[in-house]
């Protein structure tokens, strides 16, 4: 192989676009030709430098919200009318008020109910604000590392797109005075918050709690306490928890 022939192949080799025979051919040339080897090394370090510089521009949360609002709530939804939207907001407000009234009473009950109410409280607060996620991303490899140094554990953030659970992002929460991770997924118009906090206790099966039309699933796994909360139906939420547990 001459250097003239090798030139374009250096790029193809670097980009893993050659088959085994092609790679072997270029590797043989590189072991013989110092000029091409130096050129290859320069291309390789350029490639690594661009990767390390992490130059992807990240869209703001507003764009994400606009798109979701535009496509899921107005354009595509079978319940697309504003009347429906208004009435659903009204219904949500009614439920929220009912909960605000009922939560202090539930808290008196103590035990799991207190925690359940606290988790639901967090979920509702997040739904009411525009700021649902601190790190808006549909990419698990962006969301997971974001928690590094913020929580004492590394939360699992599986990609469940194939299963119709779309990752929206993550945010930091405090549960029992400890930093906890909230991973936010969406299934159609329903937001699912997955709360993960450190806890000592044996692994447990999934328990279902219901409160004010919301479903909450709780389980323990590897010294982490998991809560999945949503107004999505219980079957879907159960499937979601199964996927999280097995991923």
């Amino acid at each position, binding site marked *: 192989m001459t250097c*003239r022939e090798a030139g374009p192949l250096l790029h*193809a080799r670097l980009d893993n676009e050659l088959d085994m025979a092609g790679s072997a051919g270029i590797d043989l040339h590189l072991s*013989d030709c110092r000029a091409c080897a130096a050129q290859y090394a*320069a291309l390789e370090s350029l490639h690594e430098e661009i990767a390390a510089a992490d130059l992807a521009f990240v869209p703001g949360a507003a764009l994400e919200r606009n798109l979701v609002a*535009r496509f899921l709530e107005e354009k595509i939804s079978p319940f697309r009318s504003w009347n429906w939207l208004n009435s659903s907001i009204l219904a949500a407000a009614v439920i929220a008020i009912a909960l605000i009234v009922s939560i202090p009473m539930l808290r008196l009950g103590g035990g799991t109910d207190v925690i359940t109410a606290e988790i639901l409280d967090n979920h509702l607060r997040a739904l009411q604000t525009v700021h649902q996620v601190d790190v808006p991303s549909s990419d698990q490899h962006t969301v997971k590392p974001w928690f590094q140094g913020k929580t004492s554990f590394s939360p699992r953030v599986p990609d469940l797109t194939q299963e119709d659970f779309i990752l929206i992002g993550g945010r930091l929460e405090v549960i029992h005075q400890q930093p906890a991770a909230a991973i936010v997924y969406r299934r159609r118009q329903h937001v699912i918050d997955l709360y993960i906090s450190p806890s000592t206790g044996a692994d447990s099966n999934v328990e279902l709690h219901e409160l004010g039309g919301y479903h909450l699933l709780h389980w323990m796994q590897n010294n982490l306490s998991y809560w999945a909360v949503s107004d999505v139906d219980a079957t879907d939420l159960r499937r979601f928890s199964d996927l999280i547990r097995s991923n």
Partner: protein
Amino acid sequence: MDTKVRFFELTMWPHMRAAYNLARWLVRNDQDAEDIVQESFLKAYKAQESFRGSEAKTWMLSIVRNTALDFRRRAKAGFAVPWEDQVHEPKDDSPDPEHVLLNQSRREKVRQAISQLAEEFREVIVLREIEGLSYKEIASVLRIPMGTVMSRLSRARNLLLVELGGTKLDGAGEVQHDLP
């Protein structure tokens, strides 16, 4: 499940970040990039019958690129928005405050070097080095032959190496080196 919702969630939504990144690199302005993504999503949504189950990502990115080109054409026809004219200016004029602070950093140099490339070179670098697309995927986004992808990529990388003070280039592959 509503097939249209499904289309949005499975075909369009997963590529939102890549769409934004490409648009942002092409137009070099946050607001324009957001508008382009929104417009592209509408186009993709309307054109969903024409989507034949090929690669969703390249299909979306191709729409984004065309929208960005239209956007520039409109900008040129209407207001005098200097867009492509900035190509050979030494700096990206994004109002990013980070830009000022890190101006001297290596990362910023790399960013600037890419930003200064002419569009045909910049887009192949963004698609290959930042989005990690294969040659075949890039060819499909840009609607050019694979050979053209390879030659543009090779040219673009050589320009970057020169700009970033890498190995001195004598056009490897174009010059016969001495063989030992």
